[in-house]
């Protein structure tokens, strides 16, 4: 296959492998990402994951910040989550199933000192799976590091869109807003939130990025999510929903316009014993900060003026010539 495509995929492989082998124990360790295989140019600087030990709740209420012409709070820009990645849904700092920690790296701190579960309700931080579903999750975790069947391959390794909610902790992303729309440009996939009250798509249409209808309540973007094909899973620990899942999301933005918390309720009586809540903190990245190979992958625009203008490259991932990432996928 052509070098150009291989370069894109291997650059991604380099980022994943580098960041994985050097998983930071506490706080924000600074380590350089490993150079990509094949003699390609090294990924851009940085590559560490943010790992907040705690974060504040943000009260829902009035928005005092800038607004778009149609009255929406203007929260456009570059954002990313603040705790780890998609390796572990309920123990974000705990690493992916079967992951070997590199010799010489610090041991994991006790669970109580690691970041909280993304499941904020129930209080035990576990997804309330029905027994059959819990068995499926265990099975996925058993074979994640040695996928003997295609269903044990984490879909992002095959360039599948990251879906709901995984898109929010898979690399940084950009929010663009227009009258009647909020558009999320993720690293794998795009979500268009319709604000004009049109009805959802017919229910037998199922999509990787689902179908979203939203409206603003003060500082909170409330989004109703249906038509979810649920194929993206929640991450490397294999938690999942079914295509019957209904998600109600609340993105509450702090009036500093520098942070928001995603608080979403997942309801699916065919998979869970009760609805549960997912909480994901996020923060804005600005031109004042250096690019980060995970959270903030931007460039400075080329122009004659003095202003530093951020740009974001296209995000196109196509599986075509073999595997990348922690799990190898060989294509016949």
């Amino acid at each position, binding site marked *: 296959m*052509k070098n*150009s*495509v291989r*370069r894109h995929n291997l650059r991604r492989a380099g980022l994943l492998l580098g960041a994985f082998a050097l998983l930071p124990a506490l706080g924000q360790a600074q380590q350089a990402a490993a150079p990509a295989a094949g003699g390609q140019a090294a990924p851009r600087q940085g590559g560490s994951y943010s790992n907040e030990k705690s974060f504040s709740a943000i009260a829902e209420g009035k928005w005092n910040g800038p607004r778009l*012409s*149609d009255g929406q709070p203007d929260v456009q820009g570059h954002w990313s989550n603040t705790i780890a990645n998609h390796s572990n849904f309920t123990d974000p700092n705990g690493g992916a199933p079967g992951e070997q920690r590199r010799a010489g790296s610090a041991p994991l701190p006790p669970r109580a000192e690691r970041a909280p579960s993304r499941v904020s309700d129930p209080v035990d931080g576990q997804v309330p799976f029905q027994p*059959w*579903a819990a068995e*499926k*999750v265990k*099975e996925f975790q058993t074979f994640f590091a040695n996928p003997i*069947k*295609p*269903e044990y*391959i984490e879909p992002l390794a*095959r*360039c*599948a*869109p990251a879906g709901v909610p995984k898109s929010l902790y898979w690399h940084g992303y950009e929010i*663009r807003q*227009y*009258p009647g*729309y909020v*558009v999320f*440009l993720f690293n794998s*996939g*795009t979500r*268009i939130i319709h604000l004009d009250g*049109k*009805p959802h*798509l017919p229910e037998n*249409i199922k*999509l*990787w*990025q689902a179908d979203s209808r939203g409206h603003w309540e003060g500082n909170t973007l409330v989004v109703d999510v249906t038509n979810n*094909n*649920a*194929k*993206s*899973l929640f991450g490397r620990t294999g938690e*999942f929903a*079914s*295509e019957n899942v209904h998600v109600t999301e609340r993105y509450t933005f702090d009036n500093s316009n520098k942070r928001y918390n995603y608080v979403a309720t997942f309801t699916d009586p*065919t998979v869970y014993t009760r609805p549960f809540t997912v909480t994901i903190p996020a923060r804005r990245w600005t031109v004042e900060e250096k690019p980060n190979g995970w959270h903030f992958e931007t*460039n400075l*625009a*080329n*122009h*004659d*003026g003095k202003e530093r*203008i951020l*740009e*974001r*490259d*296209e*995000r*196109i991932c*196509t*599986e*075509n010539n073999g595997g990348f990432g922690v799990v190898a996928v060989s294509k016949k």
Partner: protein
Amino acid sequence: MTILESKFLNTKLMGTATSQPGFRLRGLGFSLLLAASVLVSPLVSGEAVAATETASGKIPRLNGKPDFSGIWQTTSAADYDLEPHSNRKDAPPGAGIVEGNYIPYLPKALEQKKKNFENRETADPAAKGYSLSWPRTAYYPEPFQIFQRKQDVTIVPQFGHSVRTIFTNGTKHHAGEAKEYWLGDSRGHWEGDTLVVDVTDFNDETWLDRAGNFHSEALHLVEHWKFLDANTIEYKATVEDPNVFSRPWNLSVILHRHREKNFQLIEDYRFTLDYDQYYPPKKP
């Protein structure tokens, strides 16, 4: 007032419309109605106009520039084959959309094109669900949505969701080594009411249509986007590639606004179809 409206009123004043007295009386009443409606028609300011604007109405504007926001699709069959062709089992006949009819291939490149055509059923990157890139997205038979701000135009095609950003903030092509983008590096500026977009730094992974017309990494595209009316855009592109063509050549298609009630893109990923049956886990 539109040109049509003023022409009509001028005709009435000149008294040349018709000799039938009855019509003249009705015509006069209609002229007055028309004049009245022009006086009370709402001014378009800032926001994009709703898709119910009549074809002869003003084009929508944003910050004084034409606003292309909306969902667009061509009725052209150009994706089957850019060049004129009779029908085939896998394509209807078409006159093509190439100015001068035929694409000026270099001899070696023409051989490659013929090979592509022979293998098109499996070799077409679109059949594998790859990004269509540009100009092909413009005439592929699926809608794409344009979102516009002052600093950029964002285009989300339904097929594959390869999101394209056209920077309209006066910035230049990125500096440094080539990145070989699927969609190229797009920089747009306004010439009157025409958006002119210069696109460079492509990879060579995509085709220009289903018939195997192709390009190299040296592709250079110059697009002209212009409203013909509020619901119609003329898309023109000059295609240049010194590795493949002996000279630059032009194509153009007409894009129509989708005005069906509640119309929206429906995500269309193809490459995931090879494996999506394995997810999510099913109840035994």
